Protein backbone atom coordinates (compact mmCIF):
# COMPACT_ATOMS: atom_id res chain seq x y z
CA UNK A 1 0.00 0.00 0.00
CA UNK A 2 1.48 3.24 -1.12
CA UNK A 3 -0.66 5.55 0.95
CA UNK A 4 0.60 6.80 4.24
CA UNK A 5 -1.09 5.28 7.20
CA UNK A 6 -2.63 8.48 8.47
CA UNK A 7 -3.98 9.68 5.13
CA UNK A 8 -7.36 8.30 4.26
CA UNK A 9 -10.76 9.41 3.08
CA UNK A 10 -12.76 6.89 5.03
CA UNK A 11 -12.12 4.79 8.09
CA UNK A 12 -14.30 1.69 8.31
CA UNK A 13 -14.41 -0.61 11.26
CA UNK A 14 -15.04 -4.24 10.38
CA UNK A 15 -15.39 -7.05 12.92
CA UNK A 16 -14.54 -10.71 12.48
CA UNK A 17 -16.89 -13.13 14.19
CA UNK A 18 -17.52 -16.86 14.15
CA UNK A 19 -16.77 -19.99 16.14
CA UNK A 20 -13.33 -20.60 17.55
CA UNK A 21 -10.87 -22.28 15.24
CA UNK A 22 -12.46 -21.19 11.97
CA UNK A 23 -9.48 -19.01 11.09
CA UNK A 24 -10.54 -15.48 11.97
CA UNK A 25 -7.09 -14.46 13.16
CA UNK A 26 -5.41 -15.87 10.09
CA UNK A 27 -7.80 -14.02 7.78
CA UNK A 28 -6.81 -10.87 9.61
CA UNK A 29 -3.08 -11.53 9.39
CA UNK A 30 -3.31 -12.65 5.75
CA UNK A 31 -5.12 -9.47 4.74
CA UNK A 32 -3.16 -6.97 6.79
CA UNK A 33 0.34 -8.48 6.83
CA UNK A 34 0.18 -11.24 4.23
CA UNK A 35 1.07 -13.72 6.94
CA UNK A 36 -0.37 -17.10 7.79
CA UNK A 37 0.37 -19.17 10.85
CA UNK A 38 -0.59 -22.83 10.82
CA UNK A 39 -0.19 -23.04 14.56
CA UNK A 40 -1.70 -19.86 15.84
CA UNK A 41 -2.69 -19.49 19.47
CA UNK A 42 -6.26 -18.94 20.51
CA UNK A 43 -7.26 -15.29 20.58
CA UNK A 44 -8.02 -13.85 23.99
CA UNK A 45 -9.74 -10.51 24.28
CA UNK A 46 -9.55 -8.37 21.16
CA UNK A 47 -6.90 -7.72 18.57
CA UNK A 48 -6.93 -5.43 15.59
CA UNK A 49 -4.97 -4.39 12.56
CA UNK A 50 -5.44 -1.97 9.71
CA UNK A 51 -4.88 -1.85 5.98
CA UNK A 52 -5.78 0.77 3.44
CA UNK A 53 -7.24 0.02 0.03
CA UNK A 54 -8.37 2.16 -2.90
CA UNK A 55 -11.96 2.29 -4.11
CA UNK A 56 -13.01 4.80 -6.79
CA UNK A 57 -9.83 6.74 -6.20
CA UNK A 58 -10.62 7.10 -2.52
CA UNK A 59 -8.42 5.70 0.19
CA UNK A 60 -10.32 3.51 2.57
CA UNK A 61 -8.63 2.52 5.77
CA UNK A 62 -10.05 -0.67 7.15
CA UNK A 63 -9.71 -1.22 10.86
CA UNK A 64 -10.34 -4.89 11.41
CA UNK A 65 -11.18 -6.27 14.81
CA UNK A 66 -10.68 -9.86 15.79
CA UNK A 67 -11.94 -11.56 18.93
CA UNK A 68 -12.08 -14.95 20.60
CA UNK A 69 -14.85 -17.26 19.47
CA UNK A 70 -16.00 -18.18 22.95
CA UNK A 71 -19.01 -16.62 24.64
CA UNK A 72 -17.00 -15.17 27.52
CA UNK A 73 -15.03 -12.87 25.25
CA UNK A 74 -17.78 -11.80 22.90
CA UNK A 75 -19.34 -9.27 25.17
CA UNK A 76 -16.15 -8.32 26.99
CA UNK A 77 -16.86 -4.83 25.81
CA UNK A 78 -19.81 -3.51 23.95
CA UNK A 79 -17.00 -1.58 22.29
CA UNK A 80 -16.28 -4.53 20.08
CA UNK A 81 -19.39 -3.89 18.01
CA UNK A 82 -19.60 -0.17 18.60
CA UNK A 83 -19.13 1.75 15.40
CA UNK A 84 -18.66 -1.37 13.29
CA UNK A 85 -20.01 -0.87 9.79
CA UNK A 86 -19.12 -4.34 8.52
CA UNK A 87 -18.90 -7.88 9.83
CA UNK A 88 -17.24 -10.92 8.35
CA UNK A 89 -19.10 -13.92 9.74
CA UNK A 90 -16.67 -16.78 9.33
CA UNK A 91 -17.24 -20.54 9.38
CA UNK A 92 -15.01 -23.47 8.51
CA UNK A 93 -16.13 -25.31 5.35
CA UNK A 94 -14.73 -28.54 6.83
CA UNK A 95 -16.65 -28.28 10.11
CA UNK A 96 -20.39 -28.32 9.73
CA UNK A 97 -21.07 -27.27 13.31
CA UNK A 98 -19.37 -23.93 12.71
CA UNK A 99 -21.79 -23.38 9.82
CA UNK A 100 -24.80 -24.37 11.93
CA UNK A 101 -23.77 -21.74 14.46
CA UNK A 102 -23.93 -18.96 11.87
CA UNK A 103 -27.55 -18.32 12.89
CA UNK A 104 -26.45 -17.79 16.46
CA UNK A 105 -23.89 -15.25 15.32
CA UNK A 106 -26.50 -13.44 13.26
CA UNK A 107 -28.64 -13.13 16.38
CA UNK A 108 -25.62 -11.83 18.26
CA UNK A 109 -25.13 -9.17 15.58
CA UNK A 110 -28.79 -8.21 15.66
CA UNK A 111 -28.59 -7.79 19.43
CA UNK A 112 -25.34 -5.84 19.65
CA UNK A 113 -24.40 -4.27 16.35
CA UNK A 114 -25.86 -1.42 14.37
CA UNK A 115 -28.88 -2.58 12.39
CA UNK A 116 -27.38 -1.31 9.13
CA UNK A 117 -24.17 -3.27 9.49
CA UNK A 118 -23.06 -4.93 6.26
CA UNK A 119 -22.57 -8.64 6.78
CA UNK A 120 -20.60 -11.03 4.63
CA UNK A 121 -20.71 -14.78 5.17
CA UNK A 122 -17.24 -16.27 4.73
CA UNK A 123 -16.60 -19.98 4.28
CA UNK A 124 -12.94 -20.24 5.19
CA UNK A 125 -10.42 -23.09 4.66
CA UNK A 126 -11.50 -23.69 1.07
CA UNK A 127 -8.15 -25.42 0.57
CA UNK A 128 -9.49 -28.38 2.54
CA UNK A 129 -11.39 -29.63 -0.51
CA UNK A 130 -11.23 -33.29 0.48
CA UNK A 131 -12.70 -32.53 3.91
CA UNK A 132 -15.51 -30.26 2.77
CA UNK A 133 -18.60 -30.59 4.96
CA UNK A 134 -20.54 -27.51 3.87
CA UNK A 135 -21.65 -27.24 0.26
CA UNK A 136 -20.97 -23.96 -1.48
CA UNK A 137 -24.48 -23.79 -2.94
CA UNK A 138 -26.08 -24.44 0.42
CA UNK A 139 -24.18 -21.60 2.07
CA UNK A 140 -24.81 -19.33 -0.89
CA UNK A 141 -28.55 -19.97 -0.70
CA UNK A 142 -28.51 -19.34 3.02
CA UNK A 143 -26.68 -16.05 2.50
CA UNK A 144 -29.19 -14.94 -0.14
CA UNK A 145 -32.14 -15.77 2.09
CA UNK A 146 -30.63 -13.65 4.87
CA UNK A 147 -29.47 -10.77 2.75
CA UNK A 148 -25.77 -11.41 3.25
CA UNK A 149 -23.05 -11.45 0.66
CA UNK A 150 -21.05 -14.63 0.44
CA UNK A 151 -17.54 -15.79 -0.43
CA UNK A 152 -15.30 -18.77 0.18
CA UNK A 153 -11.73 -18.07 1.19
CA UNK A 154 -8.53 -19.76 2.18
CA UNK A 155 -6.29 -17.83 4.51
CA UNK A 156 -3.74 -20.63 4.01
CA UNK A 157 -3.29 -20.27 0.25
CA UNK A 158 -4.62 -16.67 0.12
CA UNK A 159 -7.53 -17.51 -2.17
CA UNK A 160 -10.14 -14.76 -2.13
CA UNK A 161 -8.92 -13.16 1.10
CA UNK A 162 -8.24 -9.81 -0.53
CA UNK A 163 -11.46 -10.14 -2.49
CA UNK A 164 -13.51 -10.75 0.63
CA UNK A 165 -12.27 -7.58 2.31
CA UNK A 166 -12.30 -5.60 -0.92
CA UNK A 167 -15.91 -6.58 -1.58
CA UNK A 168 -17.24 -5.75 1.83
CA UNK A 169 -15.34 -2.46 1.99
CA UNK A 170 -16.59 -1.49 -1.45
CA UNK A 171 -20.13 -2.36 -0.45
CA UNK A 172 -19.83 -0.23 2.66
CA UNK A 173 -18.29 2.58 0.63
CA UNK A 174 -21.20 2.56 -1.84
CA UNK A 175 -23.74 2.74 0.95
CA UNK A 176 -21.90 5.49 2.77
CA UNK A 177 -21.29 7.61 -0.32
CA UNK A 178 -24.93 7.30 -1.43
CA UNK A 179 -26.06 8.21 2.04
CA UNK A 180 -23.90 11.32 1.85
CA UNK A 181 -25.66 12.42 -1.33
CA UNK A 182 -29.04 11.89 0.30
CA UNK A 183 -28.16 13.44 3.64
CA UNK A 184 -25.53 16.12 3.21
CA UNK A 185 -23.39 16.55 6.30
CA UNK A 186 -24.37 19.12 8.92
CA UNK A 187 -23.34 22.63 8.07
CA UNK A 188 -23.54 22.19 4.31
CA UNK A 189 -27.08 23.44 4.19
CA UNK A 190 -28.71 26.07 6.29
CA UNK A 191 -31.57 24.72 8.29
CA UNK A 192 -33.95 26.68 10.47
CA UNK A 193 -33.32 25.64 14.05
CA UNK A 194 -36.91 25.22 15.07
CA UNK A 195 -37.81 22.73 12.37
CA UNK A 196 -38.12 19.14 13.49
CA UNK A 197 -37.96 16.43 10.89
CA UNK A 198 -41.30 14.72 10.50
CA UNK A 199 -41.21 10.99 10.80
CA UNK A 200 -43.94 9.47 8.68
CA UNK A 201 -44.83 6.06 9.96
CA UNK A 202 -46.57 3.55 7.72
CA UNK A 203 -50.27 3.50 8.32
CA UNK A 204 -51.39 0.45 10.14
CA UNK A 205 -54.55 -0.86 8.65
CA UNK A 206 -56.61 -2.35 11.42
CA UNK A 207 -58.06 -4.96 9.08
CA UNK A 208 -54.68 -6.29 8.27
CA UNK A 209 -53.72 -6.85 11.89
CA UNK A 210 -53.89 -10.56 12.29
CA UNK A 211 -56.55 -11.76 14.61
CA UNK A 212 -55.93 -14.68 16.87
CA UNK A 213 -58.15 -17.56 15.91
CA UNK A 214 -59.49 -20.55 17.77
CA UNK A 215 -58.48 -19.39 21.23
Amino acid sequence: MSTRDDEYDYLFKVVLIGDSGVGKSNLLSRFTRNEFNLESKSTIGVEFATRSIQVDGKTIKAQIWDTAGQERYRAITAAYYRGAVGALLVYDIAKHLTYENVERWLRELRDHADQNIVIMLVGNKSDLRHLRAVLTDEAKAFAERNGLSFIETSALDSTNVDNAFQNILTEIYRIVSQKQIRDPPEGDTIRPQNVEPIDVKPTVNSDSVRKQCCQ
Partner: protein
Amino acid sequence: MAYRARLKEFQDILQEDFVQLIKLKKLAFNGIPDDQGLRALCWKLLLGYLPPERESWQDVLNHDLVVMPGSEETNGDCTLLDHPLSINPDSQWQTYFKDNEVLLQIDKDVRRLCPDISFFQQPTDYPCSQIVNSNDVKRLHTRVQRSVLKCANVERKGLGITKIALVLKKAQEDYQPMTEGQEAHWEVVERILFLYAKLNPGQGYVQGMNEIIGPIYYTFARDQDAAYREYAEADCFFCFTNLMSEIRDFFIKTLDSTDCGINNMMVRLTNQLRESDFDIWLHFQQLELRPEYYGFRWITLLLSQEFPLPDVLRIWDTLFSDENRFNFLIYICCAMIM
Protein backbone atom coordinates in the same frame (compact mmCIF):
# COMPACT_ATOMS: atom_id res chain seq x y z
CA MET B 1 24.98 -12.58 43.20
CA ALA B 2 26.83 -15.40 41.57
CA TYR B 3 24.66 -18.22 40.24
CA ARG B 4 26.14 -20.85 42.52
CA ALA B 5 25.66 -18.70 45.56
CA ARG B 6 22.01 -18.20 44.62
CA LEU B 7 21.58 -21.91 44.11
CA LYS B 8 23.01 -22.53 47.54
CA GLU B 9 20.65 -20.01 49.12
CA PHE B 10 17.66 -21.78 47.63
CA GLN B 11 18.94 -25.15 48.75
CA ASP B 12 19.48 -23.88 52.28
CA ILE B 13 15.95 -22.56 52.56
CA LEU B 14 14.36 -25.65 51.05
CA GLN B 15 16.31 -28.04 53.21
CA GLU B 16 15.00 -26.72 56.47
CA ASP B 17 12.36 -28.74 58.28
CA PHE B 18 10.05 -25.79 58.12
CA VAL B 19 10.45 -23.79 54.94
CA GLN B 20 10.23 -20.11 55.68
CA LEU B 21 7.94 -18.88 52.97
CA ILE B 22 8.76 -15.23 53.54
CA LYS B 23 12.42 -15.91 52.92
CA LEU B 24 11.61 -18.07 49.93
CA LYS B 25 9.39 -15.43 48.40
CA LYS B 26 12.04 -12.79 48.84
CA LEU B 27 14.58 -14.95 47.10
CA ALA B 28 12.30 -16.32 44.37
CA PHE B 29 11.06 -12.84 43.56
CA ASN B 30 14.33 -12.30 41.72
CA GLY B 31 14.02 -15.51 39.78
CA ILE B 32 14.36 -19.20 40.50
CA PRO B 33 17.36 -21.05 39.00
CA ASP B 34 16.48 -23.45 36.20
CA ASP B 35 18.57 -26.19 37.78
CA GLN B 36 17.60 -29.22 39.82
CA GLY B 37 13.86 -28.91 39.59
CA LEU B 38 14.03 -25.97 41.95
CA ARG B 39 11.38 -24.04 40.07
CA ALA B 40 8.85 -26.88 40.23
CA LEU B 41 9.38 -27.31 43.96
CA CYS B 42 9.26 -23.59 44.69
CA TRP B 43 6.09 -23.09 42.67
CA LYS B 44 4.40 -25.92 44.59
CA LEU B 45 5.26 -24.07 47.81
CA LEU B 46 4.42 -20.61 46.51
CA LEU B 47 1.05 -21.76 45.19
CA GLY B 48 0.21 -23.29 48.55
CA TYR B 49 0.10 -26.86 47.33
CA LEU B 50 2.96 -28.06 49.50
CA PRO B 51 2.83 -26.97 53.14
CA PRO B 52 5.96 -25.45 54.68
CA GLU B 53 6.51 -28.52 56.90
CA ARG B 54 8.93 -30.66 55.01
CA GLU B 55 7.91 -33.91 56.67
CA SER B 56 4.37 -33.71 55.37
CA TRP B 57 5.44 -33.35 51.75
CA GLN B 58 5.49 -37.08 51.21
CA ASP B 59 1.84 -37.35 52.24
CA VAL B 60 0.81 -34.63 49.83
CA LEU B 61 2.92 -35.92 47.01
CA ASN B 62 2.09 -39.57 47.63
CA HIS B 63 -0.77 -39.72 45.21
CA ASP B 64 -2.67 -42.88 44.72
CA LEU B 65 -5.00 -40.73 42.86
CA VAL B 66 -5.79 -41.79 39.38
CA VAL B 67 -8.68 -39.85 38.03
CA MET B 68 -10.12 -40.73 34.74
CA PRO B 69 -12.82 -38.40 33.67
CA GLY B 70 -15.45 -40.22 31.72
CA SER B 71 -14.46 -43.67 32.88
CA GLU B 72 -17.50 -44.01 35.10
CA GLU B 73 -19.94 -42.94 32.51
CA THR B 74 -22.09 -45.62 31.11
CA ASN B 75 -22.04 -44.66 27.51
CA GLY B 76 -23.73 -47.18 25.34
CA ASP B 77 -26.42 -47.73 27.93
CA CYS B 78 -29.82 -47.59 26.32
CA THR B 79 -32.87 -48.20 28.42
CA LEU B 80 -36.39 -46.86 28.36
CA LEU B 81 -35.40 -44.39 31.05
CA ASP B 82 -32.18 -43.16 29.56
CA HIS B 83 -31.23 -43.06 25.94
CA PRO B 84 -29.37 -40.67 23.63
CA LEU B 85 -32.52 -38.76 22.68
CA SER B 86 -33.77 -38.36 26.23
CA ILE B 87 -34.65 -34.77 27.14
CA ASN B 88 -34.65 -35.48 30.85
CA PRO B 89 -32.11 -33.07 32.42
CA ASP B 90 -30.87 -35.88 34.68
CA SER B 91 -30.16 -38.06 31.71
CA GLN B 92 -26.60 -39.32 31.69
CA TRP B 93 -26.66 -39.08 27.93
CA GLN B 94 -27.55 -35.39 28.18
CA THR B 95 -24.61 -34.88 30.51
CA TYR B 96 -22.38 -36.79 28.15
CA PHE B 97 -23.32 -34.60 25.19
CA LYS B 98 -23.00 -31.39 27.22
CA ASP B 99 -19.57 -32.48 28.41
CA ASN B 100 -18.57 -33.12 24.85
CA GLU B 101 -19.24 -29.49 23.95
CA VAL B 102 -16.79 -28.42 26.66
CA LEU B 103 -14.35 -31.08 25.59
CA LEU B 104 -14.51 -29.97 21.97
CA GLN B 105 -13.38 -26.49 22.93
CA ILE B 106 -10.62 -27.83 25.17
CA ASP B 107 -9.50 -30.15 22.40
CA LYS B 108 -9.16 -27.24 19.96
CA ASP B 109 -7.16 -25.21 22.43
CA VAL B 110 -4.73 -27.79 23.80
CA ARG B 111 -3.73 -28.52 20.22
CA ARG B 112 -2.81 -24.85 19.90
CA LEU B 113 -0.79 -24.78 23.12
CA CYS B 114 2.73 -23.34 22.82
CA PRO B 115 2.95 -24.08 19.09
CA ASP B 116 6.41 -22.57 18.91
CA ILE B 117 7.95 -25.45 20.85
CA SER B 118 7.58 -29.18 20.27
CA PHE B 119 7.26 -30.14 23.92
CA PHE B 120 3.49 -30.60 24.04
CA GLN B 121 3.55 -32.81 20.95
CA GLN B 122 6.11 -35.14 22.50
CA PRO B 123 5.10 -38.34 24.30
CA THR B 124 5.12 -38.28 28.07
CA ASP B 125 7.22 -40.84 29.93
CA TYR B 126 4.32 -41.46 32.26
CA PRO B 127 1.16 -42.07 30.27
CA CYS B 128 -2.01 -43.17 32.02
CA SER B 129 -1.86 -46.86 31.23
CA GLN B 130 -5.61 -47.56 31.50
CA ILE B 131 -6.21 -44.95 28.85
CA VAL B 132 -3.43 -45.49 26.41
CA ASN B 133 -3.96 -49.24 26.25
CA SER B 134 -7.63 -49.07 25.49
CA ASN B 135 -7.49 -49.18 21.71
CA ASP B 136 -8.10 -45.45 21.80
CA VAL B 137 -11.55 -45.98 23.31
CA LYS B 138 -10.81 -44.07 26.49
CA ARG B 139 -8.74 -41.31 24.97
CA LEU B 140 -10.65 -38.11 25.61
CA HIS B 141 -10.22 -36.60 22.20
CA THR B 142 -11.78 -39.60 20.51
CA ARG B 143 -15.04 -38.52 22.15
CA VAL B 144 -15.07 -35.39 20.05
CA GLN B 145 -13.32 -36.67 16.99
CA ARG B 146 -14.97 -35.84 13.75
CA SER B 147 -15.75 -38.89 11.71
CA VAL B 148 -16.45 -38.83 8.04
CA LEU B 149 -18.37 -41.51 6.24
CA LYS B 150 -16.23 -43.23 3.70
CA CYS B 151 -17.43 -42.89 0.18
CA ALA B 152 -16.13 -44.16 -3.09
CA ASN B 153 -16.88 -43.75 -6.75
CA VAL B 154 -18.13 -47.01 -8.17
CA GLU B 155 -17.71 -47.45 -11.88
CA ARG B 156 -19.14 -50.38 -13.73
CA LYS B 157 -17.29 -51.31 -16.85
CA GLY B 158 -19.11 -53.97 -18.71
CA LEU B 159 -20.03 -57.25 -17.24
CA GLY B 160 -18.61 -58.05 -13.85
CA ILE B 161 -15.95 -55.40 -13.85
CA THR B 162 -16.40 -52.89 -11.09
CA LYS B 163 -13.89 -50.25 -10.24
CA ILE B 164 -14.10 -48.76 -6.80
CA ALA B 165 -12.05 -45.64 -6.37
CA LEU B 166 -11.63 -45.08 -2.68
CA VAL B 167 -9.89 -41.85 -1.93
CA LEU B 168 -8.83 -41.30 1.64
CA LYS B 169 -6.95 -38.13 2.19
CA LYS B 170 -6.38 -36.64 5.56
CA ALA B 171 -4.90 -33.35 6.54
CA GLN B 172 -1.60 -33.72 8.35
CA GLU B 173 -1.94 -32.71 11.95
CA ASP B 174 0.98 -31.75 14.10
CA TYR B 175 -0.74 -32.51 17.33
CA GLN B 176 -1.43 -36.07 16.37
CA PRO B 177 -2.44 -38.63 18.94
CA MET B 178 0.23 -41.15 19.78
CA THR B 179 0.25 -44.82 18.98
CA GLU B 180 -1.20 -47.34 21.42
CA GLY B 181 0.63 -47.22 24.73
CA GLN B 182 1.85 -43.67 24.27
CA GLU B 183 0.39 -40.36 25.16
CA ALA B 184 1.40 -36.85 24.15
CA HIS B 185 1.74 -34.10 26.73
CA TRP B 186 -1.17 -32.19 25.19
CA GLU B 187 -3.42 -35.17 25.88
CA VAL B 188 -2.47 -35.01 29.54
CA VAL B 189 -3.22 -31.30 29.65
CA GLU B 190 -6.55 -31.96 27.95
CA ARG B 191 -7.44 -34.42 30.70
CA ILE B 192 -6.53 -31.97 33.48
CA LEU B 193 -8.58 -29.18 31.94
CA PHE B 194 -11.56 -31.44 31.35
CA LEU B 195 -11.41 -32.68 34.93
CA TYR B 196 -11.18 -29.11 36.18
CA ALA B 197 -14.20 -28.11 34.09
CA LYS B 198 -16.20 -31.10 35.40
CA LEU B 199 -15.33 -30.29 39.00
CA ASN B 200 -16.09 -26.59 38.60
CA PRO B 201 -19.36 -26.64 36.71
CA GLY B 202 -20.13 -23.01 37.57
CA GLN B 203 -17.12 -21.95 35.60
CA GLY B 204 -16.43 -24.77 33.20
CA TYR B 205 -13.71 -24.23 30.67
CA VAL B 206 -12.91 -20.79 29.36
CA GLN B 207 -10.46 -20.18 26.54
CA GLY B 208 -7.17 -18.99 27.94
CA MET B 209 -7.08 -21.48 30.80
CA ASN B 210 -4.90 -23.56 28.50
CA GLU B 211 -2.38 -20.72 28.54
CA ILE B 212 -2.38 -20.72 32.34
CA ILE B 213 -1.91 -24.45 32.73
CA GLY B 214 0.72 -24.69 29.98
CA PRO B 215 3.70 -23.18 31.84
CA ILE B 216 2.85 -25.03 35.07
CA TYR B 217 2.62 -28.41 33.37
CA TYR B 218 5.76 -27.72 31.35
CA THR B 219 7.68 -26.94 34.53
CA PHE B 220 6.47 -30.00 36.42
CA ALA B 221 6.76 -32.46 33.56
CA ARG B 222 10.37 -31.44 33.04
CA ASP B 223 11.40 -31.79 36.67
CA GLN B 224 14.87 -33.31 36.77
CA ASP B 225 13.79 -35.62 39.57
CA ALA B 226 11.93 -38.56 38.02
CA ALA B 227 10.08 -39.21 41.28
CA TYR B 228 8.41 -35.81 40.93
CA ARG B 229 8.10 -35.94 37.17
CA GLU B 230 6.03 -39.08 37.38
CA TYR B 231 3.28 -37.21 39.22
CA ALA B 232 3.40 -34.07 37.13
CA GLU B 233 -0.21 -34.56 36.07
CA ALA B 234 -1.66 -34.68 39.59
CA ASP B 235 0.65 -31.97 40.95
CA CYS B 236 -0.19 -29.76 38.02
CA PHE B 237 -3.92 -30.29 38.54
CA PHE B 238 -3.77 -29.15 42.16
CA CYS B 239 -1.42 -26.22 41.56
CA PHE B 240 -3.54 -25.09 38.62
CA THR B 241 -6.64 -25.31 40.83
CA ASN B 242 -4.93 -23.23 43.52
CA LEU B 243 -3.79 -20.61 41.05
CA MET B 244 -7.23 -20.51 39.44
CA SER B 245 -8.79 -19.88 42.83
CA GLU B 246 -6.93 -16.57 42.78
CA ILE B 247 -7.53 -15.56 39.19
CA ARG B 248 -10.69 -17.39 38.17
CA ASP B 249 -12.79 -14.23 38.46
CA PHE B 250 -10.94 -12.83 35.45
CA PHE B 251 -12.52 -15.62 33.44
CA ILE B 252 -16.11 -15.12 34.54
CA LYS B 253 -18.13 -12.64 32.56
CA THR B 254 -20.72 -12.03 35.27
CA LEU B 255 -17.95 -11.01 37.70
CA ASP B 256 -16.33 -8.53 35.32
CA SER B 257 -17.51 -5.55 37.29
CA THR B 258 -16.86 -6.87 40.80
CA ASP B 259 -13.87 -5.95 42.94
CA CYS B 260 -11.95 -9.03 41.94
CA GLY B 261 -13.09 -9.03 38.32
CA ILE B 262 -11.11 -8.08 35.27
CA ASN B 263 -12.53 -4.55 34.95
CA ASN B 264 -11.16 -3.58 38.33
CA MET B 265 -7.73 -4.88 37.36
CA MET B 266 -7.87 -2.76 34.22
CA VAL B 267 -8.85 0.28 36.27
CA ARG B 268 -5.85 -0.40 38.50
CA LEU B 269 -3.64 -0.56 35.42
CA THR B 270 -5.02 2.75 34.12
CA ASN B 271 -4.54 4.42 37.50
CA GLN B 272 -1.00 3.12 37.76
CA LEU B 273 -0.25 4.46 34.30
CA ARG B 274 -1.62 7.88 35.20
CA GLU B 275 0.55 7.91 38.28
CA SER B 276 3.70 6.70 36.53
CA ASP B 277 3.46 8.53 33.22
CA PHE B 278 0.77 11.15 32.99
CA ASP B 279 1.56 12.10 29.39
CA ILE B 280 1.08 8.62 28.03
CA TRP B 281 -2.07 8.22 30.09
CA LEU B 282 -3.42 11.46 28.65
CA HIS B 283 -2.48 10.43 25.14
CA PHE B 284 -4.33 7.13 25.58
CA GLN B 285 -7.34 9.01 26.89
CA GLN B 286 -7.36 11.27 23.87
CA LEU B 287 -7.11 8.32 21.52
CA GLU B 288 -9.82 6.54 23.53
CA LEU B 289 -7.42 3.65 23.75
CA ARG B 290 -8.93 1.70 26.58
CA PRO B 291 -7.19 -1.04 28.54
CA GLU B 292 -9.74 -3.55 27.22
CA TYR B 293 -7.95 -3.30 23.89
CA TYR B 294 -4.45 -4.09 25.10
CA GLY B 295 -4.36 -4.98 28.79
CA PHE B 296 -7.18 -7.50 28.95
CA ARG B 297 -5.15 -10.40 27.68
CA TRP B 298 -2.03 -9.37 29.60
CA ILE B 299 -3.87 -9.58 32.89
CA THR B 300 -6.18 -12.53 32.23
CA LEU B 301 -3.33 -14.74 31.08
CA LEU B 302 -0.71 -13.37 33.48
CA LEU B 303 1.33 -12.34 30.43
CA SER B 304 1.74 -15.91 29.24
CA GLN B 305 0.99 -15.02 25.62
CA GLU B 306 3.20 -11.97 25.51
CA PHE B 307 6.64 -13.52 25.89
CA PRO B 308 8.54 -16.70 24.95
CA LEU B 309 8.02 -19.53 27.43
CA PRO B 310 11.38 -19.23 29.28
CA ASP B 311 10.62 -15.56 29.95
CA VAL B 312 7.11 -16.39 31.08
CA LEU B 313 8.53 -18.84 33.64
CA ARG B 314 10.85 -16.17 34.94
CA ILE B 315 8.03 -13.62 35.20
CA TRP B 316 5.84 -16.12 37.00
CA ASP B 317 8.59 -16.72 39.58
CA THR B 318 8.07 -13.11 40.54
CA LEU B 319 4.29 -13.08 40.27
CA PHE B 320 3.96 -16.15 42.48
CA SER B 321 6.37 -14.60 45.01
CA ASP B 322 4.43 -11.35 45.12
CA GLU B 323 3.12 -10.94 48.64
CA ASN B 324 0.25 -8.77 47.36
CA ARG B 325 -0.83 -10.74 44.37
CA PHE B 326 -1.19 -9.36 41.71
CA ASN B 327 0.21 -5.90 42.34
CA PHE B 328 3.41 -6.65 40.59
CA LEU B 329 1.54 -7.84 37.52
CA ILE B 330 0.07 -4.35 37.24
CA TYR B 331 3.57 -2.86 37.54
CA ILE B 332 4.89 -5.08 34.74
CA CYS B 333 1.96 -4.22 32.48
CA CYS B 334 2.49 -0.56 33.18
CA ALA B 335 6.20 -0.85 32.44
CA MET B 336 5.36 -2.55 29.14
CA ILE B 337 3.46 0.56 28.05
CA MET B 338 6.14 3.00 29.13
